[in-house]
């Protein structure tokens, strides 16, 4: 299964700037692992894995801006799964946000 991480909805926030990724492509994340820190106009938001997965595609680099709800990264259950053509059909899942 392919999963898509999108910029989470945060109250009173319209867009974010990527601060730091906490893993590279190919990294296997476990539940609760910190994936990425996003900067909002107010505070830094930590996005953590709500389920295990391997990070396969990263759409934005540190310093890039993005709107709420737009794609950030693609994950998969297995590293053999084809991701490039299927990114658009990837399942958008909930990630833990704090």
């Amino acid at each position, binding site marked *: 299964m392919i999963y898509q991480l999108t910029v989470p909805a945060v109250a*009173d*926030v*319209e*867009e974010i*700037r990527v601060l730091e990724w906490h893993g590279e492509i190919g990294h296997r994340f476990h539940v609760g692992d910190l994936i990425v820190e996003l*900067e*909002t*106009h*107010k505070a830094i938001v930590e996005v953590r894995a709500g389920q295990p997965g391997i990070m396969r595609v990263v759409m934005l680099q540190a310093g890039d*801006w993005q709107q709420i709800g737009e794609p950030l990264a693609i994950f998969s259950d297995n590293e053999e799964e084809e991701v490039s053509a299927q990114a658009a059909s990837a399942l958008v899942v909930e990630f833990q946000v704090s």
Partner: protein
Amino acid sequence: MSEQVVRSKRLFFREAIACALEEEMAKDPRVFVLGQDVGSFGGSYREFDGLHEKFGASRVRDTPVAESAMVGIGVGAAAAGQRPLVCITYMDFMMLALDPLVNYGAKLRYKTGGRLTAPVVVKTTAGAKGQGVAHSQCIEAWLMSVPGLCVVAPSSPAEAYSLLRAALRHDGPVVYVDHKRLFPLAGEVTLGEIGTIGKAKIRRHGADLTVTTHSYMTRIALQAAEALQKQGVSIEVIDLLTLAPLDVETITDSLEKTGALLTLEEGQSTCGVGAEVIARVQEIMGSVRCTRVSALRAPVSSNPVLEKACLPDTARVVDAAIRLLKKTAHERR
């Protein structure tokens, strides 16, 4: 002759402010900051982030909640040769500081025959955002009539930066009014740009109606412009940026083209920004078809339903524009 490299950077509104202050403070040791939570806390909106760490407590000073004293100290320090920025967290509480600001700051040049001036910037945050009747006001219109007082109001990170740099270099006093609802915005900032106090900017060109606006309402005006375009009405949106002195020429130039004026503000219409714009424009051009859109005549409640009902929104601006243009078309027949 060395040319400064012009860099453009996308920043949050608060970062534009911090950036402008950092550059002015690095350049001029007389610039210092006074206010609540400006020091290690970095500002109520984090708009002073990093300054306390970089410049120390003597130049980024936390004060008690005492607006009259804060502005009095700022005016006095300015008269003595410093260039302070006094931060009044809520514009509502500017009311407590009007005596030192007006009677001592603004009048100093006049009282001393020009021998003393008060180059102080009073930065304050206006606007309604759920915090109720005493924490929502936009009273910049009250300040426009004070001789000797400059009033500026950025509407995006670009001018938050450029106007703050200009204000800190001005003879003063300058009141710099930002808005609670501007802080979530991000935008391109031209680093190095010193703004021009007294110059409005045309945000969108149009032919049927001139809309003057400032601060957060600029966003509402531009949204209304999009909606009106779909109805075949093209509006010219003028972002005033400086309320005192007003850039009347940009407005009259636009009116030569459109012949109709809608003024938009979040504050009250009675003796408001729009009232002054219309009076000035009519003194120059004669009778102009006009209407004012503003808050309803009530304090802004913390109740979200009442707050929304009180403030101008895109729909009200569109409605007012259509009614103005329909009315005047009918009268001309």
